[in-house]
């Protein structure tokens, strides 16, 4: 065992309060496993926002449709990396795909991921961009034109009939995509919710709470991106669209917050054996991240702002500012939610008699810097995707 790790654990040993099983000193799921559900949540949320346009015909949201799809793709591409990096033997990870243990929730990852990436996202994006790509394949310069030709799989048909077919396909895939997005993130919640050994995780509500918090975070992210990208292109922000996103954000946040309160009340009221140690943990270990960041800054204040902007007739500039602040606060809040779920579940002993600590390392494979890289990487991918497949292309559906 290396000396630094040994000293790290010795230090934690000094911070243990009460009694924990001797093997419980080490927190096994680190910040990377916090990043994982956060990223997948953004994917699911962004996709749900996009599907509002296609399935529910919310035309006001059109300007963000393609942006939302590309955002979902960019984040989905990075989402498995934190999982992979945290493995003791990343090179053996292929076994999850080829010889999965069907009773394991984690083993379903391969299928859920592949389904969502291949069948839902890539296909929807392909059909939506196909006609554009055919056009770009003719007008763009070498070698880009070839790239578009390859991406469009050398299809050439841009007749109105073909476009109608594309449109219809997009709609069908979106209809399929909504339950898929629900499964994708509900499933991530199930990874935790199905652990009966852990009273902090074991709850039927967890997958649903995960889902709605995912929708909240995804909508907020697309809103944020739209507000940053549009002015940087020298274009005006479509306020009708922005107000509409804010409305959906408000509804989703209300459902999410209600579910969280329900979960909280349920635990408190049932007051099972674990309630004492969980209360201890919330007060002593998670106060800042749960009470302050998740609930107050990440939920109550944004909810207040959103309700206020709906009720009062603020001018455009103020609304923009408030939305911007809200979207950022919500990201902080949802990230804290993931933090509290993942790390909270490991800070109390399964003997229900004591607490341990998580000391985040800075460097290293499971450190803060790595987490930061993984959180920033999707934005770079998104930038490339936007460059390659401009959401505001010449497609009549675009702006």
């Amino acid at each position, binding site marked *: 065992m290396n000396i630094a790790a040994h000293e790290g654990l010795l230090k934690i*040993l000094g911070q243990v309060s009460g009694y924990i*099983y001797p093997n419980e000193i080490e927190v096994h799921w680190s910040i990377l496993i916090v990043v994982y559900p956060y990223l997948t949540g953004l994917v699911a949320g962004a996709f749900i926002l996009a599907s509002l346009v296609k399935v529910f015909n919310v035309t006001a949201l059109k300007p963000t449709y393609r942006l939302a799809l590309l955002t979902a793709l960019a984040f989905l591409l990075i989402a498995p990396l934190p*999982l992979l990096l945290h493995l003791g033997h990343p090179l053996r990870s292929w076994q*999850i795909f080829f010889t999965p243990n069907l009773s394991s929730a984690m083993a379903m990852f391969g299928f859920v991921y592949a389904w969502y990436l291949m069948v839902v996202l890539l296909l929807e994006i392909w059909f939506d961009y196909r006609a554009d790509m055919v056009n770009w394949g003719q007008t763009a310069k070498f070698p880009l034109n070839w790239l578009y030709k390859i991406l469009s799989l050398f299809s050439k048909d841009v007749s109105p009939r073909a476009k109608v077919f594309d449109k219809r396909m997009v709609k069908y895939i979106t209809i399929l995509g909504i339950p898929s997005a629900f499964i994708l993130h509900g499933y991530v919640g199930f990874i935790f919710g199905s652990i009966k*050994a852990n009273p902090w995780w074991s709850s039927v509500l967890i997958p649903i709470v995960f889902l709605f918090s995912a929708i909240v975070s995804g909508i907020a992210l697309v809103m944020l991106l739209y507000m940053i990208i549009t002015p940087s292109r020298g274009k005006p922000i479509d306020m009708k669209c922005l107000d509409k996103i804010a409305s959906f954000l408000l509804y989703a946040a209300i459902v999410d917050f209600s579910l969280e309160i329900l979960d909280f009340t349920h635990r408190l009221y049932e007051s099972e054996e674990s309630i004492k140690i969980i209360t201890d943990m919330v007060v002593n270990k998670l106060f800042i991240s749960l009470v302050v960041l998740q609930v107050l800054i990440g939920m109550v204040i944004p909810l207040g702002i959103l309700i206020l902007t709906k009720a009062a007739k603020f001018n455009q500039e103020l609304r923009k500012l408030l939305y911007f602040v809200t979207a950022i606060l919500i990201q902080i809040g949802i990230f804290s939610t993931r933090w509290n779920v993942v790390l909270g579940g*490991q800070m109390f002993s*399964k003997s229900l008699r004591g607490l341990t600590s998580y000391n985040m390392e800075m460097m290293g494979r499971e450190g803060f810097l790595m987490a930061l890289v993984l959180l920033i990487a999707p934005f770079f991918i998104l930038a490339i995707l936007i460059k390659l497949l401009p959401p505001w292309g010449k497609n009549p559906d675009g702006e």
Partner: protein
Amino acid sequence: MKRINFIKLLSKSAIVIATGNLFGTVLHAATKSVSVTISHVKRYALGIQIEKCIGCGNCVLACKTENDVPKEPFYFRTWVERYLIKKNDDVVVQSIEGGAGKLSTEMEEKDILRSFFVPKLCNHCEKPPCAQVCPVGATFKTEEGIVLVDEKRCIGCSYCIQACPYGARYMHPEKHIADKCTLCFHRIKSGGIPACVEICPTQARVFGDLESKASPLIRLKRMKKIHVLKPELNTEPKVFYTDLDGEVK
């Protein structure tokens, strides 16, 4: 007896043929199924007599030596907890260096109502949640009911560690795989008993086959009141405790 010998001979000869041709393979399969039905499958388990444990920690050390468990005090295949129950019903639990370290009490003796030691280890659950969640099937239950980790398959995801309600598992700091008690599988396969059982000076640990009437474990289960840990989780543990106090979790 004669019949068993005959079948053994038959299966041996079958193996020889099996290497030669397909027909042999078929015959081998047939004889194998016959021999299984005759020699009963063993189901190994452990009994722990709490009233006999003196908290010496020898089992903890013997286990570490026998199984190359990292010597740092964060990794244990077995450990011993000390319970001190005070007159005001407060409970203090300790497991200093897994129970092998020096005991320390800052408590006045007159405040203590009762105290006892509880050795712990993997319960080789009949319904092991660790095996249920393992994404690649690296954790599995043998036909003898022992829950093992296949070192070559384990991807080091730690999901099993999260799923074990008893804190029986740890992530091996060098091998980067999940590790835990095997009931000294290597010893019992060659007719021995687990190292912790062998070293225990008071015979607090009783090893045996649940399918054999003559096993000391069956005798223990017949004579004493038995409890298991966290029965409400329905893992069906196969470490059976006598005199288990309600405070033990």
